[in-house]
């Protein structure tokens, strides 16, 4: 018998980080929610950093990677040693992992608020941070596999399968989606353009949900739920079936984020059908969780931990049914770009991730401090507050989504659109307020939890090192007769890793490669030309301010969209878009063909005070654009990077790009002066942004401006 010690300090560190970042992430969410109803809360008169377009990515990144991320690591560092009967392989690597991850989070918050962003959702972090993430992720992997390879338990438990598959898939997704060409220290362009960028991004985005928010949390569930319920896991067989089917099918479903867009339809259809096939594998996890509670429902009554788990698993079941429904074309026509998607992800995030985390904390903290939970009634109160918060969050969003759809798609019998976009904005504001209240209530529940956990910790004594004993593994092992074939894989962690990678790699390869290699998938349009240097600078400002968080640039082939926004978008229009900016939500109208719709002075006034040109608008104002000068130092390297990516600027254009930039800027300021008596220096950022907006969607009408040297 070997005697050894589990290190509880690292689990405690991750647990505290998880809760702390959870509060930060949710608080930012609440602020962002209120900003949508009360634009003054953007504080953009004072500084540009807190405007919705910059804040929302911090919220999403904080909740996904900081809150849930630290939740995953808490579970991994607590459960894996116990499931394998060995301490973590390296304490030092564990510490590097912890502090590295927290550094990434802080850097993420600072850079995103400062406007350093790649403009790809949930992958907004710029290239130096991407590299840091990769390093820390590898360190995490080494530590995890070191532990697995030095284990005293012959077979790997299902929780560990999920941790391994998650680790390898996230590594693959992160690296492929983050391929980018650096321009400056904090600016890069995605390697992919337009349709391809969109496909890679949503292959990543969807599977960030799958392999960051779902599979590791299934691993978490498989450890903590049976532990808390003190019941055997319902079905080992079901574990095997749903593990492999889930990771295989999940990876294909990404294109369901791009239905009715310019993505080739075969890829869209794959996204739809694989989403439908995902229902049952997902439900396998829910069933195994809920059925494990058979015979323990009397405990659910008394134990807040199990209450949280039951609702978490139920929310998981609901959202994994809803998700595939949203992948059907005709449902997606309603839900895409609407609040329905927001409601859907929050059922997952608040219900599944949030409640599972809370349940884990209520179970884990008393264990770490060798004591009882301070107050069960308080935990039960948290449970009810949280549930209420979820309901108050979700229902207004569903309602607003249906309303929005019906309003946007109505025509008068004469054939005109019945409602202006502004009517829709006005009609959803009460729902936004309700939603923000729901989120606030949910956050209040978290504070109740923190109080309870602090009191719990104070009443006990922290067990830094927990003693355990186990026999080392015998050298020679003969599987008992009649053991199932799968147990062979469970004895071979590296094989499990490789098989997982093959299984998840398959779907990605089949969807991505043809889209890159086969020409017909992105038919070229001769009149589509690269952006002028001024427009390119303007586009980077558009990305920096996070305009894509509220505005799409993708007109779907529906009568009501074509009438409202113009000709539906074609794949060939986006070939120079590094990164693509199709967006995923229309809080404001689509901008794919905004070019030429209004005059320059309209945009000028609108950016200074949106309500002056669009009464009732909830868009923040952008006064800083009128003070900051265009960063012309970067023009050269930007054009150079674009040329490296295959954008056909003429040879040597880098050197003279700024001349074109100045010329175009001057023509815009001259026109503003003569026609509208607006005096503005031609080097201000607003001029670049106007140039970019006025270009959008024009190429297809063969109105692209000419570059020098051409």
């Amino acid at each position, binding site marked *: 018998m070997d005697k050894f010690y589990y290190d509880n300090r690292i689990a405690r560190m991750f647990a505290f980080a998880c809760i702390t970042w959870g509060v930060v992430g949710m608080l930012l969410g609440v602020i962002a929610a209120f900003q949508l109803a009360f634009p003054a809360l953007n504080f953009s008169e004072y500084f540009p950093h807190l405007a919705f377009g910059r804040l929302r990515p911090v919220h999403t990144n904080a909740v996904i990677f900081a809150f849930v991320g630290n939740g995953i690591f808490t579970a991994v560092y607590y459960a894996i040693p116990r499931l394998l009967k060995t301490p973590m392989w390296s304490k030092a690597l564990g510490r590097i992992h912890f502090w590295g991850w927290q550094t990434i989070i802080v850097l993420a918050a600072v850079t995103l608020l400062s406007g350093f962003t790649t403009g790809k959702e949930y992958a907004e972090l710029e290239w130096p941070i991407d590299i840091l993430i990769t390093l820390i992720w590898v360190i995490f992997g080494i530590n995890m596999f070191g532990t697995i390879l030095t284990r005293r338990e012959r077979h790997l*438990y299902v929780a560990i399968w999920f941790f391994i598959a998650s680790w390898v898939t996230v590594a693959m997704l992160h690296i492929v989606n983050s391929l980018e060409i650096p321009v400056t220290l904090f600016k890069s362009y995605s390697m992919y353009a337009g349709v391809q960028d969109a496909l890679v991004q949503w292959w990543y985005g969807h599977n960030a949900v799958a392999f960051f928010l779902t599979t590791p949390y299934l691993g978490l569930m498989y450890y903590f739920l049976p532990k808390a319920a003190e019941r*055997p896991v319902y079905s080992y067989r079901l574990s095997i079936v749903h593990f492999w089917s889930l990771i295989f099918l999940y990876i294909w479903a990404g294109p369901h984020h791009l239905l009715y867009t310019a993505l080739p*339809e075969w890829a869209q259809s794959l996204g739809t059908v694989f989403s439908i*096939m995902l229902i*049952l594998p997902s439900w396998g996890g829910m069933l195994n969780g809920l059925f494990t509670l058979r015979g323990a*429902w009397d405990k659910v009554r008394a134990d807040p931990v199990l209450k949280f788990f039951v609702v978490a698993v139920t929310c998981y079941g609901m959202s994994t049914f809803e998700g595939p429904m949203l992948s059907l074309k005709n449902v997606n026509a309603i839900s895409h770009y609407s609040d329905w998607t927001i409601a859907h992800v929050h059922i997952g995030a608040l219900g599944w991730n949030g409640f599972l985390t809370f349940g884990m904390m209520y179970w884990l903290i008393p264990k770490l401090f060798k004591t009882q939970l301070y107050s069960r009634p308080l935990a039960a109160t948290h449970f009810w507050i949280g549930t*209420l918060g979820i309901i108050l969050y979700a229902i207004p969003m569903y309602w607003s989504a249906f309303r929005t759809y019906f309003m946007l798609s109505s025509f008068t019998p004469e054939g005109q659109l019945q409602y202006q976009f502004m009517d829709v904005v006005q009609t959803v504001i009460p729902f936004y307020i309700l939603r923000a209240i729901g989120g606030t209530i949910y956050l209040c529940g978290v504070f109740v939890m923190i109080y309870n956990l602090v009191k719990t910790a104070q009443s006990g004594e922290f067990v830094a090192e927990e003693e355990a004993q186990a026999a080392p593994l015998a050298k020679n092992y003969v599987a008992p007769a009649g053991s199932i074939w799968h147990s062979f894989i469970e004895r071979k962690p590296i094989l499990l890793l490789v098989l997982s990678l093959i299984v998840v790699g398959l779907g990605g390869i089949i969807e991505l490669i043809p889209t890159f290699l086969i020409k017909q998938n992105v038919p070229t349009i001769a009149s589509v030309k690269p952006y002028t240097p001024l427009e390119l600078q303007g586009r980077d400002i558009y990305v920096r301010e996070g305009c894509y968080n509220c505005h799409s640039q993708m007109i779907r082939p529906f009568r009501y969209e074509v009438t409202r926004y113009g000709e539906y978008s074609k794949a060939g229009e986006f070939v120079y878009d590094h990164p693509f900016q199709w967006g995923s939500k229309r809080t404001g109208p689509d901008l794919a063909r905004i070019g030429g719709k209004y005059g320059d002075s309209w945009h000028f006034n609108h950016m200074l005070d949106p309500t002056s040109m669009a009464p009732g608008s909830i868009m923040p104002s952008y006064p800083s654009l009128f003070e900051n000068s265009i960063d012309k130092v970067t023009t050269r390297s930007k054009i150079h990077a674009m040329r490296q990516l295959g954008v056909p600027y003429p040879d040597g254009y880098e050197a003279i790009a700024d001349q074109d930039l100045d010329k175009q800027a001057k023509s815009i300021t001259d026109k503003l002066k003569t026609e509208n008596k607006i005096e503005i220096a031609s080097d201000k950022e607003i001029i670049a942004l106007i140039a970019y907006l006025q270009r959008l969607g024009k190429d297809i009408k063969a109105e692209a401006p000419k570059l020098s040297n051409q």
Partner: protein
Amino acid sequence: MNNKLLFYSSAAIFAMIAAFPLFAQSAAADAAVAAPSVATDNTGTYLLLTFVAIVLLIVIYILGNVLVQAATIQSRPDNNSSKLDYFRVLLPFVLLFALPMSGYAQDAAAAAPTPSFWATPSKMDWILGAFGITILIESLAVFYLASRAMRFIKPTANTTVAQKSALAKWWNKINNFVPIEQEVNIDSGHNYDGIRELNNITPPWFTFSFAMSIIFAVTYLWRYHVAQSAPLQIQEYNIAVEQARIAQAEYLKKQSNNVDENNVKMLGANDIAAGEKLFVASCAACHGAKGNSQPGGVGPNLTDNHWIHGGSIQNVFKTVKYGYPDKGMKSWKDDFTPNQIAQLTSYIESIKGTNVAGGKEPQGELEAATDSSAADSTATTAKTDTTSQK
């Protein structure tokens, strides 16, 4: 296995759940092909949403029953008899449905630069209302189930332990549950940090529905990409546009709404007032609330006698209808009906030459201050003392 019928009937229900997207999809496609009489027909969508609502209800009911049934079987009497606080449970719902209403009431009460949504109840509102009620019922169902569970969880005196309802039996049957006492027979022998694993078979309906979803997938791909019996997105779009064109033409045939830039005439005072409302709502941003814009303003002053694209009623109608996008004037033909454009045009004609103070400097050609609408006998009021000012 003595009750095969029960098992197959339940499996069939779940198969229906799994297969319903297929029906829904084709139902919507059929609805799209069937010629609708109104341009705003969304039958397919309504059907689908109803489907979703019903299926969600079933799901909620089933999930809730897991809780309730298990609680029924397992609960035992307890001293704690505190009751579920219904007020606390229902309050959020009251708030939830009361608040948006008051929000709209405010909207409606505010002077209406944007058209009030509730002022014109339509088919859409009824459908929306129906959905709201469905969602309400579903939410109440969840809470009903939850409160039933709570009753078991905090049991009253008459809790029955031994009796299993027919539903509980059915539930055990379709999941092929092994009674808890016999669990030892299916223990896999695994023990990970105290976690044991049973080796229950996967529920039969699970396997069956999974197979159905795969069949759905194959059928879907076949229909769209091999047999091509369902329209792809651009075909779908063309069908929709064509249907709308036919419906619109038929409607316009019956209406006297086919006014255009060639036959537009100055309208009367009521229409001018209506035009003014439209103007304040949609045009004021660029042209000022009084139509005089402002010095350095975005749009030209409409109260002087200078016109960039012509000041005659025909020309103004044309400008509003088609716009001059390169000059920043957008086309409004998709936003306003021809009648509305005529109202707007009449309003603009009525303020022409009034030279409201504080406006933008003149742009375009000076047109003779002759009253273009003087020829129009319909223009009677609202424009009597304007020409004398200049």
